[in-house]
């Protein structure tokens, strides 16, 4: 039975666009992605002078004939990459109704990404977290892995508080092979530790994409009347009249979003804000188009 997370319309568009690693990633297989390991691949990169220890099979004899100097011919290797999808399943992701529920939106996004990436023969690993890791699937590029990912996502229930920063730090330490890390979260956590974790991943050579999933209410705060706000992560409740607070709230949110964007920009983390009222097809499509446009390929 096909997973509900794999919606054909979304996947059709995403698949067509593909996922292009913006940076060179490491891969186990020959794929569409450039490898930093220059060797015997098909695409020539440069010559360099032979030094003792180099394999003599790589000496460019034609060049020797012309210049009587031993040069080594270097090729750029196209390789498969591993995409690490890291999704937030903390309680704060529960906000929103139906398809606009942030958790559901994040799951759909993760599943879609997985499908698209696997389809182009790249590997995907999945990690779900709240205050700790709740599920971890190792990287695989086989199609059946998509089902495993989808099943895992479907079984995921939001729980506990968010601990994004520390967990990203852990991830950066654990994943030695460079790849692309998709972090899907609402980011309702301490900003600085979270940015630090993202920067750490970046420092380890990963391409890092932060999908910042937010509900429209959380950005525009269009609430009215008497409201008792119950904290989804269980730190209490507040009774107030939200319309009275709107200006102050919007100021606080805008400051936060700017801090996030600026932090990501400084750390060369790609920041993608997704508002859940935007259909996934359009949101993912837009992202992939944009990514394709700026890809060095």
């Amino acid at each position, binding site marked *: 039975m096909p997973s509900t997370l794999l919606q054909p319309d979304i996947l059709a568009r995403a698949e067509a666009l593909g996922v292009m690693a913006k940076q060179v990633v490491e891969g186990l297989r020959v794929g569409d992605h450039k490898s930093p390991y220059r060797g015997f691949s098909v695409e020539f990169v440069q010559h360099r002078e032979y030094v003792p220890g180099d394999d003599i099979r790589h000496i460019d004899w034609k060049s020797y004939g012309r210049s009587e100097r031993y040069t080594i011919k270097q090729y750029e290797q196209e390789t498969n990459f591993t995409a690490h999808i890291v999704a937030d399943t903390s*309680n*704060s*992701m*529960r*906000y929103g109704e139906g398809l606009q529920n*942030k958790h559901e939106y994040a799951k759909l996004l993760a599943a879609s990404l997985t499908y698209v990436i696997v389809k182009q023969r790249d590997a995907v690993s999945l990690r779900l977290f709240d205050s700790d890791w709740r599920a971890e699937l190792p990287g695989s590029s086989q199609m059946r892995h998509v089902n495993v990912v989808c099943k895992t996502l479907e079984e995921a229930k939001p729980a506990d508080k968010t601990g994004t920063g520390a967990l990203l730090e852990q991830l950066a330490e654990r994943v030695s092979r460079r790849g692309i890390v998709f972090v899907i979260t*609402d980011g*309702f956590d301490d900003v600085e530790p979270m940015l630090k974790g993202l920067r750490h991943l970046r420092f380890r050579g990963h391409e890092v994409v932060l999908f910042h999933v937010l*509900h429209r209410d*959380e950005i525009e705060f269009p*609430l*009215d*009347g*008497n*409201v*008792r*706000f*119950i*904290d*989804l*992560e269980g*730190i209490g*409740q*507040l*009774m*107030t*009249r939200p*319309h*009275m*607070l*709107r*200006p*102050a*709230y919007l*100021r*606080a*949110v805008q400051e*936060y979003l700017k801090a996030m964007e600026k932090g990501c920009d400084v750390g060369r983390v790609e920041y993608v804000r997704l508002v859940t009222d935007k259909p996934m097809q359009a949101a993912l499509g837009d992202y992939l188009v944009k990514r394709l446009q700026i890809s060095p390929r």
Partner: protein
Amino acid sequence: MMLLGAAAIAVPLALHFFYRARYRPLPWAAMTFLKQAIEQTSRRLRFQEILLLLLRCAVLLLLAFAIARPTFSGSTAAGRGESVDAVFVFDTSYSMGARDGEKSRIERAKEAALTAIENLPPRSTVQIFSCADRVAALGPISPGNLDQARQIVETIALSSLTTDLLPGITEAQNALERGAGTNKEVYIFTDMQKLGWDRQAAAIRAKCDEIKQRATLLLVRCGNPERPVRNVSVVDISSPGVEIPHSGTRIPFAVLIRNTGKEPVRNVAVALEVDGKSLEKEGEVIEVINPGETLPVTLTAKLDAAGPRVVTATITNDDLPGDNRLDKIIMVRDQLRIVIVDGSPNTRDPKEASSHYIRNAILPVSSGDLDNYFVRVTVVPADEAGPGLLGVCDVCILANVPASSADRPGIPGLSKEFVDRLGEYVKNGGGLLIGLGDNIVPARYNQVLGLTGANLLPFDLEDAIVATADKPFKIAPDTTDTPSYLERFKDEPFRTVMADVDVMKLIGIKTTGSPNGRVLMRMTDQKPFLSSRVIGEGEVILVAGSLDARWSNWPAKAGSYLSFARMTLQHLTGKAARGANRIAGETLIWNPTEATKPFAVRQPDGKRMKLGKATGGEGGKKLTVTAADTSLSGVYQIGVEDEEPLNGPRFAVAPDLRETDDLTSMTDGEVEQFLGFKPVFLQANSANEQGIANERSKREWTVWVLLALFFFVVGESFWAWYCGKAW
């Protein structure tokens, strides 16, 4: 009602707190930003909330106020629509009878009261009181019976009493206590005469202040402020000379009239009649009497029969009828019996007898006419003076009589029996004149007739004082005590003739230690010369000198001595009628001889009032019948209840002339200053209805409350919209 409405402010308060439980729960993720927003705005929010709450409370409070139809004066003042507990106090002093326009003041008061009743809202009550210097509750029996209240108002009658508003105001305050309603009005219908406010000023001020706290005080001015009252009073009826009224004579009376108003009164007709016999009435028209002027008008009256007679003086042609009539009862005698006890009789030379001059002064007729003269004088030596003499005696004179035979060896004095009877005689209304002389031993006099004895002397006697031949003692008529029957000695010609008397010797008078005695006239060196003491119904006159010519030349000064003798006789014999002449408000007292049946009194208006049975009678006390209600001037008669007509004694009750001594009315400003606050002033006239209605509506500030309510509602709506349109 208003408090009930005000309690409604509990509603927004309750909602304010209740609505905390009515918050819509919403699971929320972005709590951090919410907290930041609240931290930044909580103070402003709280301010907005409190302001909104206050506005809503104010709206409800104002609504409650508006429903209660609040008023400006007094917490219990009524608006136009709510029932009123009204208390009417009518000033029934006789100045309210003044006709200072087309209507009299009391007529205006009645009209104003009827208008006030007409304008009372449904379910109102009325309690009516009349008040002069005392208060009477007139009804109605059921305060809600306004028809009965109207009838009572129409039958209100004036008294002959003075104004004192305190009793009425006090009773009005008590009536307010009894009223069950919350809206109270006290109407005082008065001419605002200054006297009524001044008599007990502090107490009136305090009472009005208390009334103000609980009711609206409305002072209805019944006088015409543009027309001063022209008033002439009959002040007194007196005998201008020294005539003693006796039957069969026509004697002159001085009718004293006074203009107490501020304008001259012209063509005042003065008339005098006896026992209501108008045919024998004598009258005179006074062309003009100026403000403040007092005029004696001498008119004669024919006294036909002996006994108490009612002499009535009336005047006409002024604005205030209450003091235009004065009744006075005089005792008319067939004969006047006088006993002179002579301490030094002298049959050989009567001029040397101590009784000689006083006897001749009493009998100013020739010896041939003595039998026809109404005064009968009996002169007896002291040793012949027995108690039986006093039984048929109107005045007793002791002329140089020792107190007892033991005082002066060889000179007979008063017997003990006579002295004992003399005490009783005076107490029962007899007159006693004591003249001193050489036979008197002061210590013995004090012992026998003084405090330790018969207790008849006004003061204790001291030793005799002798003047030098070249410097005799002089009588000082200016020292005459007033009021007294001798006060005419202060005026000419009596003054001069009295001052001309040389006194060579007199007995000292110890004026201390006898509170009942009264010095009537002194010498120029302030030694007492004439003194008196009222004992029971009688009176004792003591002359510190002698009644003969031994100690002074007084008997030779006929103008002085005769006048003194006649005035004293007139005074002592007139005493019998004195209890019968009262002033309105005073109690009538009669001592009947038997009291088996109840008594009644007929009032001047013809009404008979039951008095019940006489009191006393036990232990030697006299039987006494009293009639306390004498608010009307005129002639009262007491008698046995069954008799028709009543046959008891008559009493003449005069109006209380203090009422018209000063007819000044206080202005609104003066009353306000007097009270210390501004009551509601109304003028009793045809516009009274409108005045009361205006006053009630003026007191209401509902319109202003509604206006404020409107603004508050608008403010609340705006603020609620600004704060987010709703809770």
